[in-house]
């Protein structure tokens, strides 16, 4: 008996362009108690991983979507309160999400229950409808049916495909040959997460789109190191923020971008788009090689060093805690990636489409460096050096232009004073 009102937990809409999400982990099991706003599960979309808080306090009466399953936004994932198996009252029946097919629970040993595979909304899917749905990555249950008993006919399906804004080219599916075991002896197979799929598609698309060229420059970071030593204590004491080298480079790069609009621009169809703002993407690695995310610092051109340092720290923390929302990762105009943390001194990153360039920062190392004093005498000094690369889309950015960008960036860093003004 339902002693309390049942509340549905549905796959949340995590941004305008997000249509589905994968349940990565249930944090509560059926029968467990949960408080409102307590995290109930973790989901992964092609943009972000996040936690879904419980909409109500009560017992988790039903979990309808298993870990690893990907379902459309709005699909009912679980029910809080009410009695198990009793659907929550839904104010808008037409918007009621349909649960995906899921494995029926194993029948108890003594009572062999007929295994019921709820096929979507229970309506028959004809072979041709199933085929078209698979080709276009459409859930037939999302298609309004005009056939007998509301069945989705081929014509319904074709009309739906036609209405799809993207004209739905078949979504790339994991290339697993039918009948082939996914993992041979000694191998292990794990499902491709939504994030990994997103990264894979994005990286491939970028290389297929842009003409990648990488130029590198060596930067004497003496002045930045000195400035940072001074500011570090102050920032940590006053603001609890660590001014990382990345923050200095970001600040200098944003300034330099004002003079090189194409590096901050975009080749969009027949137009070259440039901006009077910089939405600076910062590539952040998630734990254990589980993915990479590029949250964006909006209007970085309005921020001083402290502001950028705070923004970097905030985004990095929220990325790792899965607290980002899709808007945090949208709209970047230029990206900085920092693979130097483990000592690499050079790299050729992939441009974050549709941007035109990505800046790579590498290990800061002390190196013998030839310097020329005021009297024109050469000497070898020990300098904290950093290699910085600019990988740019040669369709829009020419080599000399990129070279001048790097030169100016180096000049800014090598002549750094105080908090950079």
């Amino acid at each position, binding site marked *: 008996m339902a002693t309390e009102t049942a509340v549905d937990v549905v796959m949340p809409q995590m941004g305008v362009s997000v249509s589905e999400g994968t349940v990565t982990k249930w944090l509560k099991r059926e029968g467990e108690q949960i408080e409102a706003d307590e995290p109930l599960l973790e989901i992964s979309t092609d943009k972000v991983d996040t936690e879904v808080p419980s909409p109500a306090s009560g017992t988790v009466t039903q979990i309808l979507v298993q870990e690893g399953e990907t379902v459309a936004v709005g699909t009912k994932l679980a029910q809080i309160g009410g009695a198990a198996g009793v659907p929550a009252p839904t104010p808008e029946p037409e918007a009621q999400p349909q649960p995906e097919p899921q494995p029926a629970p194993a029948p108890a040993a003594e009572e062999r229950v007929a295994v019921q595979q709820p096929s979507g909304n229970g309506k028959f899917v004809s072979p041709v409808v199933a*085929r078209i749905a698979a080709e276009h990555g459409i859930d037939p249950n999302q298609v309004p049916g005009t056939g007998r008993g509301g*069945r989705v006919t081929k014509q319904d399906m074709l009309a739906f495909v036609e209405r799809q804004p993207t004209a739905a080219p078949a979504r790339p599916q994991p290339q697993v040959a039918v009948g082939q075991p996914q993992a041979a002896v000694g191998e292990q197979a794990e499902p491709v997460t939504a994030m990994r799929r997103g990264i894979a598609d994005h990286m491939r698309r970028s290389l297929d789109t842009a003409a990648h060229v990488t130029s590198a420059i060596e930067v004497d970071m003496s002045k930045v190191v000195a400035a940072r030593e001074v500011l570090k204590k102050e920032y940590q004491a006053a603001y609890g923020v660590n001014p990382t080298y990345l923050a200095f480079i970001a600040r200098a790069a944003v300034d330099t971008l004002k003079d090189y609009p194409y590096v901050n621009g975009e080749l969009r169809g027949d137009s070259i788009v440039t901006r009077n703002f910089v939405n600076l993407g910062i590539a952040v690695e998630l734990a254990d090689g589980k993915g990479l995310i590029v949250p964006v610092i909006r209007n970085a051109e309005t921020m001083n060093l402290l502001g950028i340092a705070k923004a970097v720290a905030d985004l990095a923390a929220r990325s790792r805690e899965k607290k980002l929302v899709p808007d945090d990762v949208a709209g970047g105009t230029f990206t900085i990636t920092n693979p130097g943390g483990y000592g690499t001194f050079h790299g050729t990153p992939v441009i974050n489409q549709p941007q035109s360039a990505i800046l790579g920062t590498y290990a800061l190392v002390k190196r013998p460096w030839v310097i020329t004093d005021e009297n024109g005498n050469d000497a070898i000094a020990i300098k904290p050096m950093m290699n910085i690369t600019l990988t740019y889309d040669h369709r829009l950015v020419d080599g000399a232009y990129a070279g001048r960008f790097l030169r100016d960036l180096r000049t800014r860093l090598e002549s750094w004073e105080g908090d950079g003004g």
Partner: protein
Amino acid sequence: MAELTYLQAISDGLRTEMRRDKRVFLIGEDVGVYGGAFKVSLGFQEEFGPWRVIDAPLAETAIVGACTGASMMGLRPVAEMQFADFISCAWDHLVTVAAKQRWRAGTPVPIVVRLPSGGGFSGGPFHSQNPESSFAHIPGLKCVCPATPEDAKGLLISAIEDPNPVLYFEHKHLYRRIKGEVPEERYTVPIGKARTHREGSDLSVITWGAMVYTAEEAAQQLDGDGVSVEVIDLRSIMPWDKAAVLESARKTSKVLVLHEDTRTGGFGAEIAATIAEEAFEDLDAPVRRIAAPDTPVPFSPPLEKAFLPQVDDVVAGLRELAEY
């Protein structure tokens, strides 16, 4: 081009080949002086003489046996059964000898057996059958079932030309009811090639013989519902135009197979099974069959009407498929 009835087109095709090729002769019951039970060969004996238009005794087994022997000696016999129903008497000669001779001994058996078939005029159980599926099942025999005067002539000429035994099912109900333009010159219609009787995009009807017209009328009624029905006239049952059927099935995804023969083991079953095997992923509904029930053909006009697939039956079947 002249406008001929279906029956006149058969006569025209036979006459064309007899005039062109002296090896071609006609043998059957009352085909000579009387001109055949349906007057297909009226005047033939006068033109070609009694040795090429032979009145045979009432013995179908002798007729087909004579044809088989003559064909092996180099002639091109055309046998007429008064009614297709009577061919059962010649079963052994056709199935055991004619169908197998070429495969067994390499000797072609270029015979044509003309089979006035079909019901609709209270002919009763012995004068109304459509036994094509029995013979389609026999390797070595070909079966054609023209529906139009043009095909009647062209397929008869192809059948006479063909080095194999060909069973030529001519539908009695079409003899004088169906008229059409028929080229005066000699031409052939390839055996094994279907004809799109009517193009459509929503449903397919696969049929042959007199049912082509039943399907056509039903299709016109569905036009009023805004449902576009394609009608494929198979023209040949063996070999049959699988490619054309599958193409239509893939286009519309909903197929109705219609035939006048009884349902169980009728040739429609073969067509439905082939669509299920080869076009399964293109289907949006089960393949439907409309056929006569599994009984002998009744004499009584109301009963025969109930027995033969009617336009209303086809309309109902098509509507059901459309709504599926």
